[in-house]
């Protein structure tokens, strides 16, 4: 199957959006999961609900709220634009932000589960062996949570590839900028005679998803080789 130029563009844009989304959602999800698992603080329940809100809000609403916050006329959007020349609406970064935000709760939940599975006494053992908090996090907590973090990355990646509502609302459907596979399929279906293109794009989506699943499976097995018993 040879891809046409516009199909390549959609694939490349999708990968761009998903990867850029992961670069900020993965560390953020790790931090949020860490806070929620290890610390009890006032307002934790509200914080928890806020982190999970994109899961229950319609993606279109998430996109609209982003537009209200980061739009060119919105205070934060204007400030970012004036100070850093960073414009989010109608850009790949904006699409990544929208897709990443929708994927965030699932990623937090996945990482949280794996963090909760770590015996906190292992961290204490590390401390009593001379590891400071940061050392302890990178030497013990992070490697033990790695399978969960990889799973979260995969889920997040897949969700970002397929995110539709939030992306089209906030970043619109600009070929080469924000037109991901999902948006391109939608676009093709709106065009008379575009069914073949839609079908081809759908097959590509399936292939990418399967490849990502296999890669994650392989990484996960490598990461947890220690749990193999005798």
């Amino acid at each position, binding site marked *: 199957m040879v891809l046409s130029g516009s199909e390549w563009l959609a694939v490349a844009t999708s990968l761009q959006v998903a990867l850029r989304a992961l670069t900020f959602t993965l560390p953020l999800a790790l931090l949020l999961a860490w806070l929620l698992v290890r610390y009890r603080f006032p307002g934790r329940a509200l914080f928890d609900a806020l982190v999970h809100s994109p899961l229950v809000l319609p993606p279109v609403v998430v996109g609209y709220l982003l537009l209200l916050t980061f739009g060119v006329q919105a205070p934060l959007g204007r400030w970012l634009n004036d100070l850093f020349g960073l414009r989010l609406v109608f850009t790949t970064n904006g699409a990544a932000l929208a897709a990443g935000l929708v994927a965030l709760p699932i990623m937090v939940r996945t990482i949280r589960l794996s963090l909760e599975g770590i015996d906190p006494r292992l961290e204490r053992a590390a401390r009593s062996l001379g590891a400071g908090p940061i050392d302890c996090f990178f030497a013990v907590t992070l490697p033990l949570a790695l399978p969960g973090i990889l799973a979260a990355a995969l889920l997040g990646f897949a969700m970002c590839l397929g995110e539709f509502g939030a992306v089209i609302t906030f970043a619109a459907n600009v070929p080469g900028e924000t037109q991901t596979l999902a948006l391109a399929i939608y676009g093709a279906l709106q065009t008379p005679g575009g069914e073949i293109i839609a079908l081809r794009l759908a097959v590509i989506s399936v292939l990418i998803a399967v490849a990502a699943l296999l890669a994650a499976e392989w990484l996960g097995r490598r990461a947890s080789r*220690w749990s193999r018993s005798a």
Partner: protein
Amino acid sequence: MIEIELVGSRGGFTLQARFTAPPQGVTAVFGASGAGKSTLLDLLAGHLAPDRGRVVIAGRVVLDTAQGINLPAAERHIGWVPQDGLLFPHLDVAANLRFGAKRRRQAARLQEARVIDTLGIGHLLDRWPAQLSGGERQRVALGRALLAEPALLLLDEPLAAVDAARKAEILALLECIKREFGLPMLHVTHSLAEVLRLADHLVLLESGQVIASDRIDALMGRAETPLLAMRADAGSLLDLQSRAASTDGEAWLLDLEGQTVQISGNHRAASDTGHIRAYVLANEVIIATQEPIGLSVRNVLRTKIIQLRNRHDGSVLVELAVGRQHLLAAVTETAVRALDLVPGREVFALIKSLSLDAPAGLRLLETG
């Protein structure tokens, strides 16, 4: 000297502990579950914030709430060996062993090879913790803690997660560590057998309070020692010394404060220092007012009654002096009246050789 003064609470339970421990050897912290042993350990290791307290180890102040000193766990140099070993599952045995050593700031005094050799774990280095047995895991955990070269080693019920067959083995290993590496250890346990085998100093903990803290020979064999004297397995710890001409056929002759004591030869190997510790249950000591004849009992000791103390079960604990050592005998109240046992009276204590034949605690360990 190790000075410990800790007040802290967790889940409605408050611990108020104050004691000093010798700078060398094993200090056992003995108490029932719920006495506050794990709270004490967590406070000491820095895993739990104290309400107030002061901890000084070998002149180094680790905690002093009055002066605002509270070193984090990583800087306390207090090693911690939890009951299940808690090896890092994502690191192999070699990496587990090096975890603390790599983070140590001062130059190494211990040779890694010597520790690995002493613990007998050389063949496990490239294994993963999940592939080890309970006993092997405990050995590696001990090695990992030792190689970090702590100023104090905390042993949290080190035999609790080890099967019965391995207990004696790990105990012997702990004795060996005590001899070889000379670092002070705080051994928390609810097992009297472990206390008898290892401890030099004993701290008795009850309901979050230290009810006694002294050298073990000053607490064992005393009728007034709280917690211990009331137990069914109350007894005395005797320090026996081997003699030059020490055998008489199958038996082994030892010296107890100038008197001869005879034990069967099964445990001769335990005597490489010339001293052996024997634990004699109070229930296995017989008192006679006249020197008996025609008895199978081989050990007849001249003793003097120091004091008597009634126990809850109706028996009377008689504390006897054998030279400078103390021996407990449990008798009935009827016997006390019939024999006219009163403090100051000289009596004979009869102990079967078989009651003495195991190193301290081993029999208790095997039966309990």
